[in-house]
């Protein structure tokens, strides 16, 4: 059995089985508490630079299928499981998880006490680590390698996952072939006579966001994260979308500058996750790094306008400090678990953002209404 080690910067060594690519990889160790959605997690660009441990122990049961890719490839630096399934069982599966990990070059380990790892990260905070399948490297060398990993603080990773050049996206959400209510025409969504144009700033955008924007009736152009405001506005957008992405938001300075220019207009703007943090920074607020972040599909988010609670998908290590927001921006949503800021909105302009993932993929569709809200604000502006 090929062996592998997960080595934390604090010197902890977990020994298990190598179930992915050969090699040694470093990154920030984080845990995700979702019991489903490992494929979406692996292919979400926001996990760039991170070694992701799944807390649910049986992973890979349904294999990999082409429809559930959140980007063209896997982005996580490394993958950690309690028990990785070699032969999947699902009618949509086309490949096993270990085979996918190997073909994507993702170093992965299973057979370790992932709960012990999770507790360590909860108590000690997210920390750097390496996974290695290479026997030749000594434990001490691996500890040293994990310590030499760059800190996530101040790291601009968005530029490493953004697109090289603008492109259009036209694939809508998948037809609801399992016969659930989401398949019916959605009541309350605006109907556009002509497709409004949305420009999405790609800091590591997930496909489900693009699919939902198309399904909402938009023509979508995706642009690199370094696109200037002038270049962006030259595309004559009817609305701007700010994507999710990896790394420290404060380091994504070019995008912050672009957004600062856009919020000076009255263009509708919708941001998710890193996009939300960038919006906060563009407004002059501060962001800070959470101890171990929020990663999972079960966090309760309260909408402050009416107190309703939605269960939402999460994947972030930084948060906006709401105390630093200017007076014309308010907190719209709060994470009930720890009271952190989960959403922002401008008090008069149709510009808002959320820290969590209303696009799901993986996770619940409870906050899907945010896309409707964005579509309405674009529609209202066009009507005005």
């Amino acid at each position, binding site marked *: 059995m090929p062996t592998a080690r997960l080595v934390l910067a604090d010197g902890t060594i977990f020994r298990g089985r190598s179930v992915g690519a050969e090699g040694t990889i470093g990154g920030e160790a984080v845990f995700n508490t979702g019991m489903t959605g490992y494929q979406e997690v692996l292919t979400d660009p926001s996990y760039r630079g991170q070694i992701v441990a799944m807390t649910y122990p049986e992973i890979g049961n349904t294999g990999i299928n082409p429809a559930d890719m959140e980007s063209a490839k896997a982005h996580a630096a490394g993958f950690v499981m309690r028990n990785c399934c070699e032969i999947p069982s699902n009618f949509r599966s086309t490949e096993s998880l270990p085979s996918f990990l190997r073909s994507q070059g993702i170093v992965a380990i299973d057979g370790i006490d992932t709960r012990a790892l999770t507790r360590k990260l909860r108590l000690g905070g997210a920390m750097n680590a390496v996974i290695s399948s290479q026997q030749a490297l000594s434990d001490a060398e691996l500890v040293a390698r994990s310590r030499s990993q760059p800190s996530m603080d101040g790291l601009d990773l968005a530029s490493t996952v953004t697109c090289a050049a603008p492109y259009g996206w036209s694939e809508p959400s998948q037809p609801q072939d399992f016969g659930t*209510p989401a398949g019916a025409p959605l009541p309350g969504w605006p109907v556009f006579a002509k497709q409004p144009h949305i420009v999405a700033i790609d800091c590591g955008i997930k496909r489900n966001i693009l699919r939902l924007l198309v399904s909402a009736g938009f023509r979508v152009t995706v642009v690199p994260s370094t696109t200037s405001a002038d270049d962006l506005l030259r595309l004559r957008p009817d609305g701007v979308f700010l994507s999710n992405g990896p790394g420290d938001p404060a380091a994504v300075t070019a995008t912050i500058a672009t957004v600062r220019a856009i919020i000076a207009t009255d263009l509708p703007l919708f941001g998710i996750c890193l996009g939300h943090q960038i919006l906060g920074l563009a407004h002059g607020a501060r962001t800070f790094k959470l101890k171990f972040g929020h990663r999972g599909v079960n966090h309760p988010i309260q909408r402050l306008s009416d107190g309703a609670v939605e269960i939402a998908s999460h994947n972030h290590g930084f948060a906006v400090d709401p105390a630093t927001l200017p007076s014309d921006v308010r907190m719209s949503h709060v994470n009930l678990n720890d009271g952190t800021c989960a959403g922002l909105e401008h008090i008069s302009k149709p510009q808002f953002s959320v820290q969590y993932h209303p696009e799901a993929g993986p996770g619940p569709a409870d906050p899907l209404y945010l896309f409707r809200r964005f579509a309405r604000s674009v529609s209202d502006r066009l009507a005005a």
Partner: protein
Amino acid sequence: MPKRTDLKSILLVGSGPIIIGQACEFDYSGTQACKALREEGYRIVLVNSNPATIMTDPEMADATYIEPITPAALRKIIARERPDAILPTLGGQTALNNAMALAEDGTLKEFACEMIGATAEVIRRAESREEFAAVISGLGLKMAKGEKATTWEQCQAVRTRIGLPCMIRPSFTMGGSGGGLATTDEQFEAICKRGLHASRTHELSIEESLYGWKEFELEVMRDRKDNVVIICSIENLDPMGIHTGDSITVAPIQTLTDREYQRMRDAALAIIRAVGVECGGSNIQFAVNPVDGRMVVIEMNPRVSRSSALASKATGFPIAKIAAKLACGYTLDELKNDITRETPACFEPTIDYVVTKIPRFAFEKFREADDTLGYQMKSVGEVMAIGRTFRESLQKALRGLEIGVPGLMGKKADEVGDPAKKADYLRQATRPTSHRLFQVRLAMQAGATIDELATTTGIDPWFLRHIAGIVEHEARLRISGFNGIDAGTFRTAKRDGFSDRQLGLLWNTSEEQVRARRWQFGIHPAYKLVDTCAAEFAALTPYYYSSYDDESEAPPADPRSIMVLGGGPNRIGQGIEFDYCCCHAAFALRADGWRVIMVNSNPETVSTDYDTSDYLFFEPLTAEDVLEINRVMRPHGAIVQFGGQTPLNLSLALERAGVPIIGTTPEDIDRAGDRELFRDLLEKVNLRQPANGIARSLEEAAQVAERIGYPVVVRPSHVLGGRAMEIVPGKGDLKRYVQEAMDVNPGSPVLIDKYLENAAEIDVDALADGIDCVIGGVLEHIEEAGVHSGDAACAIPAYSLSDRLVNRMKEITAALARNLRVRGLMNVQFAVRNDDIYLLEVNPRASRTVPFVAKATGLPLAKIAALVQAGRTLKDLGVTTPEIRARCEPKYFAVKESVLPFNKFPGVDTLLGPEMRSTGEVMGIAPTFGEAYYKAEMGSGSTVPLSGKIFISVRDSDKRLIIPLAQQLHDMGYQVYCTQGTSVVLESGGVPVKVLNKIKDGGDTVLGHLKELAFVINTPNAKGGKSDEGKLRSACAVTGVPYYLTLASAAALVSALRQVKRTDWQVRSLQELLPDRGVWRPANG
């Protein structure tokens, strides 16, 4: 939204006796609800006919009614107590149906009693197949093709439209009672006709069959602000077609991608909103076609269910408690998650382990029953296990099932699949039964492929591959052997869930040897927390499970703790009564300053509520698992006498391994079961026992029987619930019964007693501390000796025995307690014939009747016994005073009646015997014996009409004695039907009768009149479901006609009817009846 202040008092309806499909999970949910609502300051009026429940402890509610759960009784309670609201969603289908009846007949409106938790309209929408289907189709969701029918003619019309195979389901029944899959026209007719009767609304739904699809369940909660969360997802290992209560189920869902799961979640949210469940929990079931993922909705329960109890134990999220709080006005975001105490209850639990539930069956007690599993639930209990992987969890559940297997293998090492029999195994695995998993193993060993097995069983390949992984691991372990075993191989085996006993079998050595070697290697399980959040937040509730993983989160050893060993999965003979005792031990010990470690594997129970103990270990009750807990926790002592036979069977092994057993010593417990020592003891107390002997072979048995004379009672030693116990009338049947008894407990001798015909049987429950003995209750059985004490009805105080006999039995009990050095509880069974007392059995442990006695007298025997075991004396506790001693003979009568599951097993003769077959019990309590008996009958489901036609058929020896009873019934206005033989006697006694043909002769027989009959009296001549009488009895059970099978019970019924015809029956709360409002506290507590 804060709690409602317009409500002051709430009526909580329980679920009544334990029956198949409705077990102690509703005591768990009801108890949580009582606590949650009283915490909010509401006055709680509680009704439940089941005295063995924790919820009916007088301190749990403000007014506790142990009364029948019928619309009539509920109406009387509502009229008396005038509650502002009725909460029907925590007492299973029974509570829901009764509340619906009260809504429909106008009672709730008349008394301005609001239905909370779910309204009548919502319940109707969820429960009526047609209304539900309309809701589902309105949402754009799919259901199986189906139509409803209310007559046999309509059924036939639907059948032509839908075709066969099809699924038939009656509306408003629990556990799918009366439903089934029809693949032939004959089956179709039989199931439709049975189902039309079983449904409260005489309504059936007939649907296309989804046999073989994957089956899933979601536990959903919604509050009045429209927040909705999924608490738990469950996947059935067994495919559609097998009732989810009879399926092996796993949490969370394993074989759906996130996208597929989210679609199911979206559907569940849409359904609970559309049906309109305003607040509380619901269970929604789905089927998914494994080939293309097509999803259909199966059904919804707009209430707390068996699955929600499982979901609560599986995740740590207290669904019933939260449902109760939501019902009184709170919203999810206002309530805290009990486990983290920081984060809100408005979230979706995520788990980092795998939970497996396996049902436990009792087919060995119903030999004539069809053991094929289908749409109608047949299991009597369940075991749950938690592991870090599916394999570990499955093997833990299998050994926790206590069916003799140590994991996924046979009882013996040589039970291995033979390649020559592969086709046989595959054929057998096609039919779903309780042992299919073991056939799958044999088939794999014989060379069957995953594909072959997936096709024949409908089990998803993901599960099959893991099962194959265990089977392959077993083969490797057989090869590696014990001698050369290294720590790595050993640990790998433990991580796949192999038990020490299983390894001992595979390695041809003893369990103890395996354990010794394992401990030498330092291989021990880690204990992990159930925390609702996969370690994302710190958890404060100490709810543990073991896993062979690295980091243990076990608390430090606690010398001020006492370990209480529970009873494991419910089975006939060992169920809620013992869990009640374990809970009471925990309550009393905690109140007395001890910390309590609870060990149990039954998810339905109150004992496995994390609130009940200080440390909950959700673990199988095997020596291995208990020893590991003992090693970590180092308790002051362990209590083994409360959990039934399960912990008793472990006690010697535990003591040998150094676990301090407190209370009566294992040696003394064992001594009571030792026939030779027992005989010496009898001489000491100068007492008779029926002539008896011990046999270790068929020859010896024949000699013993010959010596003592037929009829004899044959039974295996060391079993509970009279397993394989039989009355053998003559030589001809002896061999068969002795053989059966020997097979039950190989190696143990068979006990043979002279059967005392027409003797009265008496149970005495007592407490002793080595100095004093306090009698808890003297229970006189209604049925004569020979009917298992668990099946017999009985009364406190004795209703026909003289004071002299009762006092003599009390003296004997005290003498036995002294001689057996009993510390704790003791149960003695006597037979009385012609004023002679015979001793049948002594058991120095909690008996099944302990909760009944406690409810009848207000003296909590189990609590007192627990304190005695922990070192207190009876005197010091204040229970040796004359006032307390007098409690065992109250001024009113309490009658316990048993409830039998024959309606689930058509064609099985319902005749009672020495083998226990009842699943549950009810109590009736009233100033007169007659009223108490009438209410007990009503509570057990036999509301005997006060006029009408009755059928009498008695054996020759009873014919003379039946005349006065028949005369009285005739005088009360009943019209008597009988067969020729009985009619001659009755007419000669002056009772007018109408004569019917025997069933075997056809024509105008009793079967044609069943629906008109008020009740049937039949004392048996012949046994068996194929005899005339057997057919009658089975038909009565299936159609719900009350039937009385002994003269004694018939006489009790007659006295009850006379009483109730004179004065109508009343409802009274325990707090009114019992001394000190039923609440006992230790004198120096």
